[in-house]
Protein backbone atom coordinates (compact mmCIF):
# COMPACT_ATOMS: atom_id res chain seq x y z
CA UNK A 1 0.00 0.00 0.00
CA UNK A 2 1.48 3.36 -0.99
CA UNK A 3 1.53 6.45 1.23
CA UNK A 4 -1.28 8.21 -0.67
CA UNK A 5 -3.73 5.33 -0.26
CA UNK A 6 -2.71 5.00 3.41
CA UNK A 7 -3.49 8.68 3.91
CA UNK A 8 -6.80 8.27 2.09
CA UNK A 9 -7.71 5.30 4.30
CA UNK A 10 -6.75 7.25 7.42
CA UNK A 11 -8.82 10.21 6.26
CA UNK A 12 -11.77 7.95 5.48
CA UNK A 13 -11.44 6.36 8.94
CA UNK A 14 -11.29 9.75 10.60
CA UNK A 15 -14.42 10.98 8.84
CA UNK A 16 -16.41 7.84 9.49
CA UNK A 17 -19.34 8.48 11.84
CA UNK A 18 -19.04 6.30 14.93
CA UNK A 19 -21.92 7.74 16.97
CA UNK A 20 -25.20 8.86 15.46
CA UNK A 21 -28.32 9.94 17.36
CA UNK A 22 -31.57 10.74 15.57
CA UNK A 23 -34.43 12.28 17.58
CA UNK A 24 -33.41 10.56 20.81
CA UNK A 25 -35.53 11.22 23.88
CA UNK A 26 -35.52 9.81 27.39
CA UNK A 27 -37.61 10.23 30.52
CA UNK A 28 -38.60 8.17 33.53
CA UNK A 29 -42.19 9.24 32.77
CA UNK A 30 -43.71 10.92 29.65
CA UNK A 31 -44.68 13.96 31.75
CA UNK A 32 -41.08 14.59 32.86
CA UNK A 33 -38.73 14.16 29.90
CA UNK A 34 -35.02 14.38 30.74
CA UNK A 35 -33.74 14.45 27.15
CA UNK A 36 -35.76 15.60 24.17
CA UNK A 37 -35.17 15.06 20.48
CA UNK A 38 -31.37 14.89 20.48
CA UNK A 39 -29.84 14.61 17.02
CA UNK A 40 -26.08 14.57 16.51
CA UNK A 41 -23.23 12.70 14.85
CA UNK A 42 -19.66 12.21 16.04
CA UNK A 43 -16.93 11.16 13.59
CA UNK A 44 -14.13 8.72 14.44
CA UNK A 45 -11.10 10.20 16.21
CA UNK A 46 -12.83 13.34 17.49
CA UNK A 47 -12.46 14.52 21.10
CA UNK A 48 -15.89 15.84 22.03
CA UNK A 49 -16.86 17.60 25.21
CA UNK A 50 -20.38 17.56 26.64
CA UNK A 51 -21.18 20.59 28.81
CA UNK A 52 -24.20 22.01 30.57
CA UNK A 53 -25.55 22.83 34.01
CA UNK A 54 -26.14 20.08 36.58
CA UNK A 55 -29.21 18.00 35.83
CA UNK A 56 -29.38 18.92 32.13
CA UNK A 57 -29.05 15.28 31.04
CA UNK A 58 -25.35 14.92 30.14
CA UNK A 59 -24.78 11.70 32.10
CA UNK A 60 -28.14 10.37 30.98
CA UNK A 61 -27.19 10.96 27.34
CA UNK A 62 -23.94 8.99 27.58
CA UNK A 63 -25.69 6.19 29.47
CA UNK A 64 -28.17 5.90 26.58
CA UNK A 65 -25.31 5.27 24.15
CA UNK A 66 -24.52 1.83 25.52
CA UNK A 67 -27.99 1.01 26.83
CA UNK A 68 -27.21 1.49 30.51
CA UNK A 69 -30.51 3.37 30.31
CA UNK A 70 -33.17 2.56 27.70
CA UNK A 71 -34.09 5.39 25.29
CA UNK A 72 -37.78 6.38 25.13
CA UNK A 73 -37.69 7.39 21.45
CA UNK A 74 -35.35 7.89 18.51
CA UNK A 75 -32.52 5.92 16.98
CA UNK A 76 -28.95 5.38 18.19
CA UNK A 77 -26.28 3.94 15.89
CA UNK A 78 -22.83 3.11 17.29
CA UNK A 79 -20.01 1.94 15.01
CA UNK A 80 -22.52 1.12 12.27
CA UNK A 81 -24.78 -0.95 14.56
CA UNK A 82 -28.26 0.23 15.45
CA UNK A 83 -28.75 -0.03 19.23
CA UNK A 84 -31.13 -2.93 19.84
CA UNK A 85 -31.33 -5.80 22.33
CA UNK A 86 -29.25 -8.04 20.01
CA UNK A 87 -26.50 -5.47 19.46
CA UNK A 88 -26.02 -4.34 23.09
CA UNK A 89 -23.10 -6.76 23.56
CA UNK A 90 -21.27 -5.48 20.48
CA UNK A 91 -21.95 -1.83 21.34
CA UNK A 92 -20.72 -2.24 24.92
CA UNK A 93 -17.52 -3.71 23.52
CA UNK A 94 -17.16 -0.66 21.28
CA UNK A 95 -17.78 1.90 24.04
CA UNK A 96 -15.77 2.10 27.26
CA UNK A 97 -16.99 4.27 30.13
CA UNK A 98 -14.99 5.82 32.95
CA UNK A 99 -17.27 7.14 35.70
CA UNK A 100 -16.98 9.95 38.19
CA UNK A 101 -16.35 8.07 41.44
CA UNK A 102 -13.32 5.77 41.16
CA UNK A 103 -14.44 3.84 44.27
CA UNK A 104 -17.78 2.79 42.85
CA UNK A 105 -16.39 1.38 39.59
CA UNK A 106 -13.78 -0.90 41.18
CA UNK A 107 -15.22 -4.37 40.61
CA UNK A 108 -12.31 -6.69 41.44
CA UNK A 109 -10.74 -7.05 44.87
CA UNK A 110 -7.31 -6.21 43.44
CA UNK A 111 -6.06 -4.10 40.53
CA UNK A 112 -5.28 -7.25 38.55
CA UNK A 113 -8.74 -8.73 39.14
CA UNK A 114 -10.39 -5.45 38.23
CA UNK A 115 -8.63 -5.24 34.86
CA UNK A 116 -9.22 -8.93 34.17
CA UNK A 117 -12.97 -8.60 34.86
CA UNK A 118 -13.67 -7.03 31.47
CA UNK A 119 -11.14 -9.20 29.62
CA UNK A 120 -12.62 -12.44 30.99
CA UNK A 121 -16.02 -11.25 29.79
CA UNK A 122 -14.58 -10.95 26.26
CA UNK A 123 -13.63 -14.67 26.48
CA UNK A 124 -10.03 -13.94 25.47
CA UNK A 125 -7.27 -16.53 25.61
CA UNK A 126 -4.91 -16.56 28.61
CA UNK A 127 -2.02 -15.28 26.47
CA UNK A 128 -4.08 -12.39 25.09
CA UNK A 129 -5.31 -11.42 28.57
CA UNK A 130 -1.75 -11.52 29.93
CA UNK A 131 -0.46 -9.42 27.06
CA UNK A 132 -3.19 -6.78 27.44
CA UNK A 133 -2.94 -6.76 31.25
CA UNK A 134 0.78 -5.98 31.16
CA UNK A 135 0.67 -3.69 28.15
CA UNK A 136 -2.07 -1.37 29.50
CA UNK A 137 -0.90 -1.34 33.12
CA UNK A 138 2.61 -0.40 31.93
CA UNK A 139 1.19 2.26 29.67
CA UNK A 140 -0.73 3.85 32.55
CA UNK A 141 2.11 3.40 35.04
CA UNK A 142 0.23 1.06 37.37
CA UNK A 143 2.07 -2.20 36.62
CA UNK A 144 3.58 -2.13 40.14
CA UNK A 145 0.09 -1.98 41.71
CA UNK A 146 -1.37 -5.23 40.34
CA UNK A 147 -1.68 -6.95 43.75
CA UNK A 148 -2.99 -3.85 45.53
CA UNK A 149 -6.50 -3.57 46.99
CA UNK A 150 -8.65 -0.49 46.28
CA UNK A 151 -8.21 0.71 49.87
CA UNK A 152 -4.46 0.98 49.31
CA UNK A 153 -4.73 3.26 46.26
CA UNK A 154 -5.04 7.02 45.92
CA UNK A 155 -7.96 8.54 43.99
CA UNK A 156 -5.71 9.20 40.98
CA UNK A 157 -4.38 5.64 41.00
CA UNK A 158 -7.94 4.25 41.20
CA UNK A 159 -8.97 6.36 38.22
CA UNK A 160 -5.91 5.09 36.29
CA UNK A 161 -6.98 1.52 37.10
CA UNK A 162 -10.47 2.33 35.80
CA UNK A 163 -8.99 3.75 32.58
CA UNK A 164 -6.64 0.76 32.16
CA UNK A 165 -9.61 -1.60 32.69
CA UNK A 166 -11.49 0.17 29.91
CA UNK A 167 -8.59 0.61 27.46
CA UNK A 168 -7.55 -3.05 27.90
CA UNK A 169 -10.90 -3.99 26.36
CA UNK A 170 -9.76 -1.97 23.31
CA UNK A 171 -12.94 0.01 22.62
CA UNK A 172 -12.98 2.53 19.77
CA UNK A 173 -15.00 5.04 21.82
CA UNK A 174 -14.15 6.06 25.38
CA UNK A 175 -16.53 8.13 27.50
CA UNK A 176 -15.29 10.03 30.55
CA UNK A 177 -18.27 10.98 32.75
CA UNK A 178 -16.83 13.76 34.95
CA UNK A 179 -13.90 11.43 35.50
CA UNK A 180 -11.67 14.20 36.85
CA UNK A 181 -14.15 15.86 39.21
CA UNK A 182 -13.11 13.87 42.29
CA UNK A 183 -9.37 14.10 41.61
CA UNK A 184 -6.77 16.47 43.02
CA UNK A 185 -4.89 18.88 40.75
CA UNK A 186 -1.96 16.50 40.14
CA UNK A 187 -4.17 13.52 39.33
CA UNK A 188 -6.29 15.72 37.08
CA UNK A 189 -3.19 16.77 35.12
CA UNK A 190 -2.21 13.10 34.83
CA UNK A 191 -5.66 12.25 33.47
CA UNK A 192 -5.46 15.05 30.92
CA UNK A 193 -2.02 13.75 29.88
CA UNK A 194 -3.55 10.31 29.26
CA UNK A 195 -6.35 11.90 27.19
CA UNK A 196 -3.86 13.88 25.09
CA UNK A 197 -1.89 10.66 24.45
CA UNK A 198 -5.09 8.89 23.44
CA UNK A 199 -5.95 11.63 20.97
CA UNK A 200 -2.42 11.54 19.55
CA UNK A 201 -2.84 7.82 18.89
CA UNK A 202 -5.84 8.64 16.69
CA UNK A 203 -7.66 5.37 17.22
CA UNK A 204 -9.98 6.60 19.97
CA UNK A 205 -13.09 8.75 19.77
CA UNK A 206 -13.36 10.51 23.11
CA UNK A 207 -16.56 11.84 24.65
CA UNK A 208 -15.97 13.76 27.87
CA UNK A 209 -18.34 15.38 30.36
CA UNK A 210 -16.72 18.18 32.33
CA UNK A 211 -17.29 21.58 33.91
CA UNK A 212 -13.59 22.51 33.81
CA UNK A 213 -12.74 25.29 31.34
CA UNK A 214 -9.14 24.14 30.79
CA UNK A 215 -10.31 20.62 30.02
CA UNK A 216 -12.91 21.93 27.56
CA UNK A 217 -10.23 23.99 25.84
CA UNK A 218 -8.23 20.84 25.07
CA UNK A 219 -11.07 19.24 23.08
CA UNK A 220 -12.02 19.49 19.38
CA UNK A 221 -15.73 20.16 19.75
CA UNK A 222 -18.23 21.17 22.42
CA UNK A 223 -21.84 19.99 22.62
CA UNK A 224 -23.89 22.07 25.06
CA UNK A 225 -27.02 20.69 26.68
CA UNK A 226 -29.63 22.65 28.55
CA UNK A 227 -33.02 21.58 29.84
CA UNK A 228 -32.72 18.23 28.11
CA UNK A 229 -32.03 19.68 24.66
CA UNK A 230 -28.90 20.24 22.57
CA UNK A 231 -28.46 24.04 22.48
CA UNK A 232 -25.04 24.42 20.85
CA UNK A 233 -22.53 22.50 18.76
CA UNK A 234 -19.40 24.67 18.66
CA UNK A 235 -15.62 24.70 18.98
CA UNK A 236 -14.14 25.44 22.43
CA UNK A 237 -13.00 28.87 21.16
CA UNK A 238 -16.53 29.68 19.97
CA UNK A 239 -17.93 28.61 23.34
CA UNK A 240 -15.57 30.82 25.34
CA UNK A 241 -16.21 33.81 23.09
CA UNK A 242 -19.97 33.48 23.59
CA UNK A 243 -20.74 35.05 26.98
CA UNK A 244 -24.43 34.16 26.81
CA UNK A 245 -23.73 30.49 26.09
CA UNK A 246 -21.15 30.38 28.88
CA UNK A 247 -23.74 31.71 31.30
CA UNK A 248 -26.39 29.24 30.11
CA UNK A 249 -23.96 26.37 30.63
CA UNK A 250 -22.82 27.69 34.03
CA UNK A 251 -19.23 27.85 32.80
CA UNK A 252 -16.38 30.33 33.14
CA UNK A 253 -13.73 31.09 30.55
CA UNK A 254 -10.27 29.58 31.17
CA UNK A 255 -8.06 31.56 33.56
CA UNK A 256 -5.48 32.39 30.83
CA UNK A 257 -8.27 33.70 28.56
CA UNK A 258 -9.73 35.91 31.29
CA UNK A 259 -6.29 37.31 32.11
CA UNK A 260 -5.51 37.96 28.42
CA UNK A 261 -8.85 39.78 27.99
CA UNK A 262 -8.15 41.95 31.05
CA UNK A 263 -4.68 42.79 29.67
CA UNK A 264 -6.23 43.65 26.27
CA UNK A 265 -8.66 46.02 28.02
CA UNK A 266 -5.66 47.75 29.59
CA UNK A 267 -4.12 48.29 26.15
CA UNK A 268 -1.61 45.43 26.13
CA UNK A 269 -1.63 43.85 22.68
CA UNK A 270 -1.74 40.12 23.26
CA UNK A 271 -3.34 37.16 21.46
CA UNK A 272 -5.74 34.95 23.39
CA UNK A 273 -3.53 32.04 24.53
CA UNK A 274 -4.34 28.33 24.40
CA UNK A 275 -2.94 27.74 27.88
CA UNK A 276 -1.43 29.48 30.92
CA UNK A 277 2.03 28.40 29.75
CA UNK A 278 1.47 30.01 26.35
CA UNK A 279 0.38 33.24 28.08
CA UNK A 280 3.52 33.27 30.24
CA UNK A 281 5.71 32.54 27.18
CA UNK A 282 4.02 35.44 25.31
CA UNK A 283 4.50 37.89 28.19
CA UNK A 284 8.05 36.81 29.00
CA UNK A 285 9.48 35.31 25.81
Amino acid at each position, binding site marked *: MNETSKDQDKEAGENQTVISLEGVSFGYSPEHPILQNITLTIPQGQWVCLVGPNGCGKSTLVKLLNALLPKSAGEIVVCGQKLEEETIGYIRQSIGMVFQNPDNQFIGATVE*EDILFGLEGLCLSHAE*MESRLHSYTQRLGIDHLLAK*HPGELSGGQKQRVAIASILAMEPGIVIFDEASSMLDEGSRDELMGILHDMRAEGKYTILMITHDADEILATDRVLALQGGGLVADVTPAELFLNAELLERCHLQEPYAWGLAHELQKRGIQIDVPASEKELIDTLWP
Partner: protein
Amino acid sequence: MNDKLLLGRSIETGSWVHKLDARAKITGMLLYVAVILLSRSWMAMALLALFSIAVMISTRIPLKYFLKAAKPLRYLMLFIFIVQLLSVKEGSVWLSIGSLSLHDGGLRLGSFAVIRMLFLITFTALLTFTTTPGKLNQGLEGILSPFKKLGLSPDRITLMLSIALRFIPTILDEAQIIMKAQASRGADLNELPLKEKGRMLVSLLVPIITSAFRRAQDLVYSMEARGFRMDAPRSQYHRLRWGAADTVFVIMFVVMGVAVSLV
Protein backbone atom coordinates in the same frame (compact mmCIF):
# COMPACT_ATOMS: atom_id res chain seq x y z
CA MET B 1 -2.32 -2.44 59.08
CA ASN B 2 -5.86 -1.14 59.38
CA ASP B 3 -8.30 -3.66 60.99
CA LYS B 4 -10.87 -2.80 58.37
CA LEU B 5 -8.47 -3.67 55.58
CA LEU B 6 -8.02 -7.16 57.02
CA LEU B 7 -11.63 -8.03 56.25
CA GLY B 8 -11.66 -10.42 53.34
CA ARG B 9 -8.22 -9.52 52.08
CA SER B 10 -5.30 -11.77 51.33
CA ILE B 11 -1.80 -11.30 52.75
CA GLU B 12 0.79 -12.58 50.30
CA THR B 13 3.79 -14.42 51.83
CA GLY B 14 4.25 -17.18 49.24
CA SER B 15 3.89 -19.98 51.84
CA TRP B 16 2.84 -23.53 50.94
CA VAL B 17 -0.72 -22.81 52.13
CA HIS B 18 -0.92 -19.82 49.75
CA LYS B 19 0.00 -22.10 46.85
CA LEU B 20 -2.75 -24.66 47.58
CA ASP B 21 -5.83 -24.99 45.39
CA ALA B 22 -8.69 -22.88 46.83
CA ARG B 23 -10.98 -25.92 46.69
CA ALA B 24 -8.61 -27.81 49.01
CA LYS B 25 -8.58 -24.91 51.46
CA ILE B 26 -12.37 -24.59 51.47
CA THR B 27 -12.73 -28.37 51.98
CA GLY B 28 -10.12 -28.17 54.75
CA MET B 29 -12.04 -25.40 56.48
CA LEU B 30 -15.31 -27.32 56.32
CA LEU B 31 -13.56 -30.36 57.84
CA TYR B 32 -12.03 -28.08 60.48
CA VAL B 33 -15.54 -27.10 61.65
CA ALA B 34 -16.26 -30.83 62.10
CA VAL B 35 -12.95 -31.27 63.97
CA ILE B 36 -13.93 -28.44 66.34
CA LEU B 37 -17.31 -30.00 67.03
CA LEU B 38 -15.67 -33.38 67.69
CA SER B 39 -13.26 -31.88 70.26
CA ARG B 40 -14.93 -32.60 73.60
CA SER B 41 -12.03 -33.02 76.06
CA TRP B 42 -9.12 -30.89 77.28
CA MET B 43 -6.75 -33.27 75.49
CA ALA B 44 -8.67 -32.84 72.22
CA MET B 45 -8.63 -29.05 72.73
CA ALA B 46 -4.86 -29.10 73.27
CA LEU B 47 -4.40 -31.18 70.12
CA LEU B 48 -6.66 -28.81 68.18
CA ALA B 49 -4.70 -25.79 69.46
CA LEU B 50 -1.35 -27.35 68.54
CA PHE B 51 -2.53 -28.25 65.04
CA SER B 52 -4.17 -24.87 64.41
CA ILE B 53 -1.20 -22.82 65.61
CA ALA B 54 1.24 -24.99 63.63
CA VAL B 55 -0.73 -24.44 60.40
CA MET B 56 -1.09 -20.72 61.11
CA ILE B 57 2.66 -20.36 61.69
CA SER B 58 3.39 -22.27 58.48
CA THR B 59 1.54 -19.55 56.50
CA ARG B 60 4.29 -17.09 57.61
CA ILE B 61 1.55 -14.55 58.42
CA PRO B 62 2.10 -12.99 61.89
CA LEU B 63 -0.22 -14.59 64.49
CA LYS B 64 -1.41 -11.14 65.59
CA TYR B 65 -3.31 -10.82 62.30
CA PHE B 66 -5.27 -13.97 63.12
CA LEU B 67 -6.04 -12.61 66.58
CA LYS B 68 -7.14 -9.30 65.05
CA ALA B 69 -9.71 -11.23 63.02
CA ALA B 70 -11.27 -12.50 66.27
CA LYS B 71 -11.06 -9.16 68.10
CA PRO B 72 -14.44 -7.79 66.94
CA LEU B 73 -16.17 -10.82 68.51
CA ARG B 74 -14.43 -10.66 71.91
CA TYR B 75 -17.54 -9.40 73.73
CA LEU B 76 -19.69 -12.10 72.18
CA MET B 77 -17.18 -14.71 73.36
CA LEU B 78 -17.22 -13.21 76.86
CA PHE B 79 -21.02 -13.23 76.83
CA ILE B 80 -21.15 -16.91 75.79
CA PHE B 81 -18.63 -17.79 78.54
CA ILE B 82 -20.69 -16.00 81.24
CA VAL B 83 -23.97 -17.57 80.06
CA GLN B 84 -22.43 -21.07 80.15
CA LEU B 85 -20.84 -20.38 83.52
CA LEU B 86 -24.10 -19.27 85.08
CA SER B 87 -26.48 -21.70 83.42
CA VAL B 88 -24.68 -25.05 83.59
CA LYS B 89 -25.18 -26.74 86.96
CA GLU B 90 -23.05 -29.87 86.45
CA GLY B 91 -20.10 -31.03 88.57
CA SER B 92 -18.93 -29.70 91.93
CA VAL B 93 -19.54 -26.13 93.09
CA TRP B 94 -16.34 -24.10 93.17
CA LEU B 95 -17.84 -20.74 94.09
CA SER B 96 -21.06 -19.85 95.86
CA ILE B 97 -22.29 -16.33 96.63
CA GLY B 98 -25.80 -16.27 98.08
CA SER B 99 -28.16 -17.95 95.61
CA LEU B 100 -25.54 -17.84 92.86
CA SER B 101 -23.40 -20.96 92.45
CA LEU B 102 -20.75 -21.64 89.84
CA HIS B 103 -20.09 -25.24 88.85
CA ASP B 104 -17.09 -27.04 87.35
CA GLY B 105 -19.23 -28.07 84.37
CA GLY B 106 -20.10 -24.45 83.58
CA LEU B 107 -16.46 -23.41 83.69
CA ARG B 108 -15.48 -26.32 81.46
CA LEU B 109 -18.25 -25.85 78.88
CA GLY B 110 -17.79 -22.05 78.89
CA SER B 111 -14.07 -22.43 78.25
CA PHE B 112 -14.70 -25.00 75.50
CA ALA B 113 -17.20 -22.71 73.79
CA VAL B 114 -14.78 -19.75 73.84
CA ILE B 115 -11.82 -21.84 72.65
CA ARG B 116 -13.91 -23.36 69.86
CA MET B 117 -15.16 -19.97 68.72
CA LEU B 118 -11.68 -18.42 68.91
CA PHE B 119 -10.12 -21.15 66.79
CA LEU B 120 -13.05 -21.22 64.40
CA ILE B 121 -12.68 -17.50 63.63
CA THR B 122 -8.89 -17.30 63.63
CA PHE B 123 -8.42 -20.45 61.62
CA THR B 124 -11.07 -19.68 59.02
CA ALA B 125 -9.42 -16.26 58.61
CA LEU B 126 -6.54 -18.33 57.25
CA LEU B 127 -8.68 -19.06 54.20
CA THR B 128 -9.12 -15.40 53.27
CA PHE B 129 -5.58 -14.44 54.32
CA THR B 130 -3.98 -17.04 52.05
CA THR B 131 -6.37 -16.88 49.08
CA THR B 132 -7.06 -13.90 46.83
CA PRO B 133 -10.78 -13.15 46.49
CA GLY B 134 -10.67 -14.14 42.81
CA LYS B 135 -9.24 -17.59 43.59
CA LEU B 136 -11.65 -17.96 46.50
CA ASN B 137 -14.52 -17.33 44.09
CA GLN B 138 -13.18 -19.87 41.67
CA GLY B 139 -12.77 -22.38 44.50
CA LEU B 140 -16.33 -21.80 45.70
CA GLU B 141 -17.61 -22.12 42.17
CA GLY B 142 -15.75 -25.40 41.83
CA ILE B 143 -17.11 -26.73 45.14
CA LEU B 144 -20.67 -25.65 44.32
CA SER B 145 -20.62 -26.79 40.68
CA PRO B 146 -22.28 -30.18 41.41
CA PHE B 147 -25.33 -28.22 42.69
CA LYS B 148 -25.88 -26.80 39.19
CA LYS B 149 -28.01 -29.87 38.51
CA LEU B 150 -30.34 -28.74 41.31
CA GLY B 151 -30.84 -25.38 39.60
CA LEU B 152 -28.31 -23.51 41.76
CA SER B 153 -26.14 -20.91 40.03
CA PRO B 154 -22.65 -21.04 41.62
CA ASP B 155 -21.38 -18.05 39.61
CA ARG B 156 -24.23 -15.87 40.90
CA ILE B 157 -23.55 -16.92 44.48
CA THR B 158 -19.81 -16.29 44.23
CA LEU B 159 -20.35 -12.96 42.49
CA MET B 160 -22.70 -11.85 45.28
CA LEU B 161 -20.23 -12.99 47.93
CA SER B 162 -17.23 -11.30 46.31
CA ILE B 163 -19.07 -8.00 45.86
CA ALA B 164 -20.37 -8.14 49.43
CA LEU B 165 -16.84 -8.78 50.71
CA ARG B 166 -15.42 -6.06 48.49
CA PHE B 167 -17.95 -3.51 49.78
CA ILE B 168 -17.57 -4.13 53.53
CA PRO B 169 -14.70 -1.60 53.94
CA THR B 170 -16.49 0.93 51.71
CA ILE B 171 -19.72 0.71 53.73
CA LEU B 172 -17.73 0.97 56.99
CA ASP B 173 -16.05 4.10 55.62
CA GLU B 174 -19.43 5.51 54.71
CA ALA B 175 -20.78 4.79 58.21
CA GLN B 176 -17.77 6.58 59.73
CA ILE B 177 -18.35 9.63 57.52
CA ILE B 178 -22.06 9.79 58.41
CA MET B 179 -21.30 9.36 62.14
CA LYS B 180 -18.74 12.17 61.97
CA ALA B 181 -21.19 14.36 60.06
CA GLN B 182 -23.82 13.77 62.76
CA ALA B 183 -21.25 14.34 65.53
CA SER B 184 -20.24 17.65 63.91
CA ARG B 185 -23.88 18.72 64.26
CA GLY B 186 -23.87 17.88 67.96
CA ALA B 187 -25.08 14.27 67.84
CA ASP B 188 -22.01 12.34 69.02
CA LEU B 189 -22.95 8.67 69.29
CA ASN B 190 -20.25 7.98 71.89
CA GLU B 191 -21.53 10.59 74.32
CA LEU B 192 -25.24 9.73 74.20
CA PRO B 193 -27.16 7.65 76.78
CA LEU B 194 -28.02 4.10 75.72
CA LYS B 195 -31.65 4.85 74.76
CA GLU B 196 -30.61 7.80 72.59
CA LYS B 197 -27.82 5.70 71.08
CA GLY B 198 -30.39 3.19 69.83
CA ARG B 199 -32.43 5.97 68.24
CA MET B 200 -29.33 7.45 66.65
CA LEU B 201 -28.30 4.08 65.22
CA VAL B 202 -31.66 3.87 63.44
CA SER B 203 -31.13 7.33 61.98
CA LEU B 204 -27.68 6.17 60.82
CA LEU B 205 -29.11 3.18 59.01
CA VAL B 206 -31.22 5.18 56.56
CA PRO B 207 -28.36 7.20 54.99
CA ILE B 208 -26.07 4.13 55.02
CA ILE B 209 -28.64 1.99 53.20
CA THR B 210 -29.39 4.80 50.73
CA SER B 211 -25.70 5.23 50.04
CA ALA B 212 -25.22 1.46 49.67
CA PHE B 213 -28.00 1.38 47.05
CA ARG B 214 -26.40 4.31 45.19
CA ARG B 215 -23.02 2.58 45.20
CA ALA B 216 -24.63 -0.68 44.09
CA GLN B 217 -26.30 1.15 41.17
CA ASP B 218 -22.95 2.70 40.16
CA LEU B 219 -21.28 -0.69 40.36
CA VAL B 220 -23.96 -2.23 38.16
CA TYR B 221 -23.37 0.53 35.58
CA SER B 222 -19.64 -0.10 35.74
CA MET B 223 -20.08 -3.87 35.33
CA GLU B 224 -22.55 -3.53 32.47
CA ALA B 225 -20.39 -0.91 30.76
CA ARG B 226 -17.60 -3.54 30.78
CA GLY B 227 -19.90 -5.92 28.95
CA PHE B 228 -20.93 -8.04 31.94
CA ARG B 229 -24.05 -10.14 31.43
CA MET B 230 -25.24 -12.69 33.94
CA ASP B 231 -24.82 -16.27 32.73
CA ALA B 232 -22.85 -15.16 29.64
CA PRO B 233 -19.73 -17.27 28.97
CA ARG B 234 -16.45 -15.98 30.45
CA SER B 235 -12.85 -17.13 30.19
CA GLN B 236 -10.66 -17.51 33.30
CA TYR B 237 -7.21 -16.01 33.68
CA HIS B 238 -6.28 -18.03 36.78
CA ARG B 239 -7.01 -21.73 36.50
CA LEU B 240 -7.24 -23.95 39.57
CA ARG B 241 -4.99 -27.02 39.64
CA TRP B 242 -5.39 -29.82 42.21
CA GLY B 243 -2.03 -31.35 43.20
CA ALA B 244 -0.59 -33.83 45.69
CA ALA B 245 -0.14 -31.08 48.31
CA ASP B 246 -3.88 -30.36 48.14
CA THR B 247 -4.72 -33.99 48.82
CA VAL B 248 -2.25 -34.04 51.76
CA PHE B 249 -3.82 -30.84 53.13
CA VAL B 250 -7.32 -32.34 53.13
CA ILE B 251 -6.09 -35.66 54.61
CA MET B 252 -4.48 -33.69 57.48
CA PHE B 253 -7.92 -32.54 58.59
CA VAL B 254 -9.42 -36.02 58.29
CA VAL B 255 -6.60 -37.40 60.47
CA MET B 256 -7.13 -34.57 62.98
CA GLY B 257 -10.85 -35.37 63.11
CA VAL B 258 -10.13 -39.02 63.88
CA ALA B 259 -7.47 -38.07 66.47
CA VAL B 260 -9.64 -35.61 68.43
CA SER B 261 -12.62 -37.94 68.47
CA LEU B 262 -10.41 -40.72 69.95
CA VAL B 263 -8.81 -38.72 72.79
